[in-house]
Every structure is written in C-alpha cells, then in structure tokens.
C-alpha cells in the first residue's frame, strides 16, 4: 500500500472498523512511514477521546482487586522473572540507544523493497527493543540478580551472498547465572520456504561451535527470535552465524563481550 491508499483508510482504522486484512496492511505501512503514522496517531487520539463522551456506568465492586491481581500475577513478585526482565529490557534500551548499534547500517543490506524502512533507524531500534522484551517475557527464570554488567550486544549483517536481512544479538555472560543468547533476525525473505529452517550458531576463536537455536518460521517482515540457555560459559563465543536450510550463510556478526 502507498501513502495515498493508507491515508484513505486511516479514519476507519481510528474508529476500529477496518477489515483485519486492511488493518494489517495499514499497520505494516505505519511501521516505517512517519508521516502516515503521525496522522494515524492524531485521528486515533480523536476517536479514543470520543469514548469519554459516554455517561459513566457504575463499575462493579471487586473489579479493582481482579485487575490488580491479574497484573500482579503476570508481573510477579519483587525479584521475579518479570522484574529482572524489565530491568534487563531497560539496560538493553540504554545500550541500543548509546552503543551506536548502527541499526540503520544493519538494515541497509536488505533488498530494495525494504530500503525505505531501512531509513527509519530509530523506529527499528524501538522494534528491536520490543522484540527483545517479547523474548525476555517468555524466557526461563534465570535468577534474582539483575545482570547489569554481563549483557552484551552485537549486530548481524547479511553476507555477500544473500545481501538481505539483518539482526541483533544479546548475550548474558554471567558468573552467577546460566548464560543465554537471544538472536533477533529481520528482513529475511519470508516467501523463501526452502530456506527454512535457519540454524543459529555461536562460535569461538578456537572453532568450537554451539547451537543457539533453530528458526522454523518467519513473520511477514522476515523476522524471528530465538532464545537459548547454555550450561557452559559463553565467554569467547562471540561469532554468531545464521545459516539457511540450504547450508548458505545468510547473516553473520560479532558480539562485543568487552563492553
């Protein structure tokens, strides 16, 4: 969809009556188009404020406790997984923001049809953060201590053979908890079914290779996340590679464990 087509649909998006298909197409466009996103936000805010015009109905007693309990159960007690994840996510946010991850450069290797999105470096950082958080939300409990100084980031770039896709890597290399890696890829060709599954590996300078996950499906943007926990020390396992089912190396990168 181009901007003209999208803008015609934005009023219906704002009031929530777009078909699911159109909604998906519009939201995909909004991920990279700042102009349409601005208009969508404005119309959406207007529609949402409209809801306040209703005469308030009495809220059943006890609902507050149900709401608090559900959020509490989902978020966990102090020191729980969620708390740790929140803290880790904040660390990642800061690291992505200040480490010069070069997300724009990562995305620049994608095919032409993704070129416009590649220019939206800031948005891509936000998406990366959100994806990290999604993965973290489903990760096993790793301990009560927030591993502030043990998280390391790296970026994945396409190889000369494929020239599409990109990604990011987060590793936890900790003396007190089990190490893990999270690899996020994006921009791979979602229509290339023959490329699945992708295998993700970590390797060290001595040539030892660890399996860090298998990607069996890509989303519409050619993205996926893999999480893997290790029973050994990930120190030195800084090379990350993503290989498709045909054995072709599609993405490669290095984690900076010195940071």
């Amino acid at each position, binding site marked *: 969809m181009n901007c003209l087509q999208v803008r015609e649909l934005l009023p219906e998006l704002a009031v929530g009556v777009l078909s699911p298909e159109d909604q998906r197409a519009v939201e995909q466009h909004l991920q990279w188009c700042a102009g349409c996103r601005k208009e969508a936000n404005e*119309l959406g805010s207007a529609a949402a404020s409209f809801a306040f015009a209703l*005469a308030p109905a009495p809220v059943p007693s006890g609902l507050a406790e149900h709401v608090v309990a559900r*959020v509490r159960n989902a978020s966990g007690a102090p020191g729980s997984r969620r708390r740790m994840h929140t803290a880790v996510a904040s660390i990642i946010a800061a690291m992505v923001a200040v480490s010069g991850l070069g997300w724009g450069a990562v995305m620049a290797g994608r095919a032409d049809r993704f070129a416009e999105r590649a220019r939206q470096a800031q948005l891509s950082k936000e998406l990366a953060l959100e994806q990290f958080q999604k993965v973290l939300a489903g990760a096993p409990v790793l301990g009560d201590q927030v591993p502030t100084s043990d998280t390391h980031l790296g970026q994945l770039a396409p190889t000369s053979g494929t020239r599409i896709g990109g990604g990011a890597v987060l590793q936890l290399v900790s003396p007190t908890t089990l190490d893990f890696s999270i690899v996020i890829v994006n921009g791979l060709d979602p229509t290339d079914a023959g490329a699945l599954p992708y295998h993700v590996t970590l390797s060290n300078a001595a040539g030892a290779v660890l399996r860090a996950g298998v990607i069996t499906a890509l989303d519409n943007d050619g993205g996926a996340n893999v999480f893997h926990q290790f029973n050994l020390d990930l120190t030195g396992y800084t090379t990350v590679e993503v290989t498709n089912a045909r054995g072709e190396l599609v993405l490669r990168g290095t984690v900076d464990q010195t940071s």
Partner: protein
Amino acid sequence: MHTRADGPLLVREEQQLVEGLLAGNEDAVRMLYTRYARPIFTLGLRLLGSAEAAEELTQDVFLAAWRKAARFDPTRGRLSTWLMTIAHNLAVDRLRRETGVTRPTLVLVDEVPEVVGTDEEESMIERDTALRALESLSDAEKRLLVRAYFGGLTAREIAETDGIPLGTVKTRLRTALIKVRRANQDKEPM
C-alpha cells in the same frame, strides 16, 4: 509513587505511572484503575453489551497496558487516549471473534444523562473535553462517528445504508475526527 490522586496528570506524571505499571507496581496499577477503569468499563458495556464482558474487557485492558507499557510514548499522545484505544481495539477484536453477536445498540452520546463522580476527576475532565469536542460537530457528523465508533459500522456499510458514495462517508469521517482532534488540542497538558 508520587503521582497525585486527583486532577489532570502532567506528561511526566503519566510517564511515571506507566513506568510503575511496567514494573508491576501495585500502587501504579491502583492509581491507573482509579482514574481510568470507569470509562474503560463504560466503553466495554456499550460495545459488548453485558457487564460480565465489560469486566473481562477492563481486566484485559490493564493487562494489555502492562504488556505494552514499554511502548507508551507520552510525547505522542495522552495516557487516557492510549488506554481507550487499547480498550476499543480489544472490544472490537472480541466482537469480531464472536461471530453472530448482535451489534451493540447505538448510543446517542449527546443525549445520555450527565453523571458526575467524585473519585475519577481525570475521566470527568476527559468527558467534559469530549463533550465540548462534540459540540464542534454537526448532528450528521456526530451520528456518523457514533455509528462507526460505537456501532462498529464500516464506511461501506454506512454508505450503502444511506445511499451515498463511499468516498463521501470516508471524507466526512475524517473531517469529523479532525474537528474532534482540533477541539482536544487546546486541552492537552504540557
């Protein structure tokens, strides 16, 4: 949590509340509930048609807000509209999933009785703003927004019912939303 219990929230206070929500802070959840549960429940009641469904929706909205809290950006819009957008989207999704559900009865927003609460000043201010914004619309524009937002009618359905071109309906819908937006802009906190 140092957020005030009443009065409109400043942008930094909204951010503070959302950060508290993200961290699972119970005080933050209760503060948000006090301010926004009623309009969320009301919207659920109108769209879904039963108190049970509206209760479930209200719980789902706060849970979804917790999940999405990291993405809330106070510079892009008010916390109230963010929560209400989540509520409306969840309600519409639910209506779509439940095939065969009768569309909710249309609510004439300019004819509903005024009810003033004492513990939800924020939502009362929001209501006042919304009602003022509605005054900027013609009756036809009001009816159009009500049919789409509360009635769930698509632009095509409205066009077919009224016997007018689809493009005209879309244009009118956009114009009405822009008028509401402009009327709201003066009320946004710094």
